C-alpha cells in the first residue's frame, strides 16, 4: 500500500518535502538541545540570586552560601560522587569481564537474548524489585531464615537505603550492565575482535588477557560516550536514589527535589544553586574519569610489555559468569517479587511464598492504574514516533547528500545524556512558568523527546548505515525516485530495526520520572511518577502492583517489534537475515 502511495507522490510535493528534509538535522538539534540550553540558562539565574517571579532581584552568591549552610550538604555531595563513580566502575568492570570471558560461549548467547528485556525494565521498577529482594523481610532473608540466621521475624536492620549507598550502587549496576553490554556488542562488530583475540591466544595469553590487551584498546574509544553517560546518570539519578539511596542525608539529587518542592519558595534558589553544584560535580567526575583512562592505558601498556601471559584465568571466567547471572537475576527476581507482592494475601515471615494469593489488590487498585497507564502510553507513543520521524529524516538527508557521520555529531547526540537532568530541568520548569507555557502533556512529550531522540537515533542509525546501498541503486536504475526508494524499499527492509528503535524510544519515555514530574507540574501522572510517589508510603502490595505495571509497560512494544516483521515477512526468507 505504501508502495502505491509513494509512487503517486506529486512532483510538487516531493520538491517541497525535499526542502523540508534539509531542515531535519537543525530541527532535531533544536528539539534535543534547545530545552537543555534554555534549562541551563534558566538554572543559572536563580542560582546566582536572580528570580524576579519570587522577588529575588539582587544577583550574588547568596544561594550558594545558603546551599553550603544546609546540614549534611558535604555528605550529600560526597554520596553522589562516590555512588556514581562506584556504580560506573563496577558496571564497566562486569561488562568488560563478561564480554572478554564469555563471548562465543553458550551462556553468552543466553545473556544476549536477555539484554533487551532487561534494558526495557525502567530504572524505578528495577530499583523497587531490588529493594524488595534485599529488604529484611525480602526473599533473600526468607531463604536463609530461620535455619541459617535464626530470624523468626524480619530483623531490624537497614539493607536498602544503607548510609554508605551500597544498595544504591547495586541498583544502578544491575541496570547499567545491560546498557553497557549492548553498547559494547554494537562496537565489537566494528573492531576486528575475533582475530585480535586469536592472535593473543596463539601467543599463549589467557583468553581474558588476550581480549583486554588485543581488543579493548580499540574498543574503548567507541564505548567511551556510553560510559560517560552512565557516569552522569549514576551521579544524578533521582528515582533510584529515592528508592535505594540513604536518607539522612540523601544524595544531592534527592535533596534538590526536596528543596524544589518545599513550601518555602526561598529554597528554590538553593535548589538551583545545588543543581549547578551537581553539574560541576559531574563535570569534575568526567574529567577525573578521563584522567583515569589515561592512567589505565599507560599501566596496560607497561603490563603488556612485561609479557606475563595470565594463562590461569579459569576462575575469573567463572566469576564473570556468576556476576552476569547475579546481575540479571537481581532484576528478574526483583520484578517477580513485585508481582508476587501484588497478588499476596497474608505472607508470613519467613515463608518463601504467601499463604494465599488474591486478586483483591488488583481489584481494588486496578481502576486507579488505568488512567496513568493510558497517559504513559500516549506520551510514549507520541515521543517515540516523533523521535523516529526526526531520526529517519536526518538519516535520509545524510544519505542523499552523501554525508558521513562525524564524531562531533555523536557528541551532540550524547549531550542530553551527559548533562545531569536536574541541572536543566529546574531551569526549564522555571523558564516555562515564567514564559507562561501551559505545562501539560504536550510539554511533557516535548521534554521526553530530549532523552528519547538520542536513544532512537542511536538504535536506528546502525542498521540504517549498514543497509546495502546497492538496493537503492537498483531501485533508482528502475526509475524509482528517492522518495519511492525510501518508502517502498528502504523502510520496509528496515522495518524490524525501525520497530525496535520505536520500542526503545517508548521504553525510555516510560521510564522518565523527573521530566514528567517537573514539567508536568504534578498534573501529568504516569505509571512511573505514581510508582515512585508510593515509595515513601511503604505499602508493599501497592508498590508491587505499580512496579509490575511499570515494568510490564514497555514489553508489548518489544513484542510487537519482534512479531510484526516476522508475520509480515513470514514468506520472505531473505528478510530473516537482515538485522
Amino acid at each position, binding site marked *: 500500500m505504501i508502495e502505491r502511495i509513494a509512487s503517486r507522490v506529486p512532483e510538487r510535493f516531493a520538491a517541497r518535502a525535499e526542502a523540508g528534509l534539509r531542515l531535519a538535522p537543525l530541527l532535531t538539534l533544536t528539539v534535543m538541545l534547545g530545552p537543555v540550553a534554555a534549562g541551563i540558562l534558566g538554572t543559572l539565574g536563580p542560582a546566582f540570586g536572580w528570580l524576579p517571579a519570587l522577588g529575588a532581584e539582587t544577583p550574588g552568591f547568596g544561594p550558594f552560601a545558603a546551599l553550603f549552610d544546609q546540614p549534611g550538604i558535604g555528605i550529600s555531595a560526597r554520596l553522589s560522587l562516590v555512588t556514581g563513580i562506584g556504580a560506573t566502575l563496577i558496571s564497566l568492570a562486569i561488562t568488560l569481564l563478561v564480554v572478554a570471558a564469555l563471548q562465543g560461549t553458550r551462556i553468552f548467547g543466553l545473556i544476549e537474548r536477555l539484554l533487551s528485556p532487561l534494558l526495557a525494565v525502567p530504572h524505578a521498577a528495577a530499583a523497587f524489585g531490588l529493594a524488595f529482594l534485599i529488604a529484611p523481610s525480602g526473599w533473600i532473608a526468607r531463604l536463609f531464615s530461620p535455619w541459617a540466621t535464626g530470624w523468626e521475624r524480619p530483623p531490624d536492620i537497614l539493607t536498602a537505603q544503607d548510609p554508605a549507598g551500597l544498595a544504591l550502587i547495586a541498583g544502578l549496576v544491575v541496570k547499567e550492565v545491560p546498557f553497557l553490554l549492548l553498547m559494547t556488542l554494537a562496537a565489537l562488530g566494528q573492531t576486528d575482535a575475533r582475530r585480535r583475540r586469536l592472535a593473543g591466544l596463539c601467543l599463549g595469553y589467557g583468553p581474558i588477557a588476550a581480549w583486554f590487551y588485543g581488543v579493548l584498546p580499540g574498543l574503548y574509544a567507541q564505548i567511551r560516550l556510553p560510559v560517560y553517560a552512565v557516569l552522569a546518570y549514576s551521579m544524578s539519578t533521582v528515582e533510584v536514589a529515592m528508592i535505594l539511596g540513604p536518607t539522612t542525608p540523601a544524595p544531592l539529587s534527592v535533596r534538590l527535589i526536596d528543596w524544589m518542592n518545599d513550601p518555602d519558595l526561598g529554597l528554590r534558589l538553593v535548589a538551583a544553586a545545588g543543581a549547578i553544584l551537581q553539574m560541576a560535580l559531574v563535570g569534575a567526575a568526567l574529567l577525573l574519569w578521563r584522567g583515569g583512562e589515561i592512567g589505565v592505558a599507560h599501566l596496560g601498556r607497561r603490563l603488556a610489555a612485561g609479557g606475563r601471559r595470565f594463562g590461569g584465568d579459569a576462575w575469573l571466567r567463572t566469576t564473570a559468569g556468576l556476576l552476569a547471572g547475579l546481575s540479571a537475576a537481581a532484576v528478574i527476581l526483583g520484578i517477580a517479587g513485585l508481582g508476587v507482592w501484588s497478588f499476596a494475601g497474608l505472607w508470613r515471615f519467613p515463608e518463601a511464598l504467601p499463604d494465599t494469593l488474591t486478586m483483591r489488590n488488583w481489584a481494588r487498585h486496578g481502576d486507579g492504574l488505568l488512567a496513568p497507564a493510558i497517559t504513559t502510553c500516549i506520551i510514549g507513543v507520541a515521543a517515540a514516533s516523533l523521535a523516529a520521524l526526526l531520526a529517519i529524516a536526518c538519516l535520509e538527508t545524510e544519505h542523499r547528500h552523501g554525508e558521513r557521520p562525524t564524531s562531533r555529531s555523536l557528541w551532540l547526540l550524547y549531550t542530553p545524556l551527559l548533562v545531569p537532568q536536574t541541572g536543566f530541568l529546574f531551569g526549564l520548569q522555571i523558564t516555562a512558568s515564567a514564559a507562561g507555557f501551559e505545562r501539560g502533556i504536550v510539554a511533557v512529550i516535548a521534554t521526553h523527546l530530549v532523552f528519547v531522540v538520542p536513544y532512537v537515533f542511536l538504535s536506528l542509525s546502525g542498521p540504517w548505515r549498514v543497509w546495502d546501498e546497492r538496493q537503492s541503486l537498483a531501485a533508482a*536504475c528502475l526509475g524509482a525516485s528517492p522518495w519511492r526508494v525510501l518508502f517502498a524499499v528502504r523502510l520496509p527492509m528496515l522495518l524490524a530495526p525501525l520497530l525496535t528503535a520505536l520500542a526503545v524510544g517508548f521504553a525510555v519515555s516510560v521510564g522518565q520520572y523527573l521530566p514528567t514530574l517537573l514539567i508536568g507540574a504534578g498534573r501529568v501522572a504516569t505509571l512511573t511518577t505514581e510508582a515512585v510517589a508510593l515509595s515513601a508510603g511503604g505499602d508493599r502490595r501497592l508498590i508491587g502492583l505499580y512496579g509490575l505495571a511499570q515494568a510490564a509497560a514497555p514489553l508489548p512494544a518489544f513484542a510487537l517489534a519482534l512479531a510484526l516483521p516476522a508475520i509480515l515477512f513470514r514468506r520472505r526468507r531473505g528478510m530473516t537475515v537482515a538485522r
Partner: protein
Amino acid sequence: MNENLSDSAPGLRLEDLTVSLGTNGLVAIGATVDPGEILTVMGPSGSGKSTLLAAITGTLAPGFTMTGRVLLDGEDITDRPTHRRGIGLMMQDDVLFPHLSVGANLAFGLSPTIRGHAARAARVEAALDAAGLGGMAARDPATLSGGQRSRVALMRALLAEPRAILLDEPFSKLDTSLRTQIRSFTFEQITAARLPAILVTHDHEDAAAAGGRIMAPRTEA
C-alpha cells in the same frame, strides 16, 4: 552499424568522459554505443570499471571530478538524477528486493504508465513466461536458484523500459554450465529490445560472447 557523430544520434554516447580522484585519473573514455550493440569494457579490478559505471549512473561519490558528457539518444543526461536517466543496471549480485515477491519485484520495475492491476499483472506474467519462469510471480525471491534470480533481475530491468543498459559483471557469480545459458539469454533480450549496452567484465569469454568492440576504462591518449 552506422557511426553517426551528430548529437541527435540514437544510442548511448560517452563524450570525452574522464573521472579523477584528486590527481589520480581513473577513467578516460570516448565511445558511442548504437542500439542493439554491446560494448565491452575490460580491465582487471581497480582499473576504473566501477568508477565508469558510477559516472554513467550518476552515483559518483563526492570527491570525484568528472569532465565530458553522457548523451542518451541525443539528450544530455550528465547532470540528471539516477532515476531520471533511463539507464538500466544489472549488477554482479541480482539485488532482488528481499521483502517483495518475484512478481512484485517485476512490478516495481514496470513503468507506471501501464495502469490497472490486471494489465500490470499480465505484463509481469508475460515477462516471467519470456524468461521461462511462468507461474512464479508469488514466489519468494530467496527460494529461486541463482540462474532464475539472474533472469528475474534482467526482466525487471527491461520492464522499466530503459533506453540503455549497463551490465556490471552480471555473470561472474554463476557456475560455468549456467553461465553460457544465462549470458546468451541476456544478450538475446538486449539485442531484441534494441538497447545500447555496456558490459563491464574481466572475463574474456564474456567479452567474446558479447561479440562487440572491447575497450579499456582508460584509453591512453
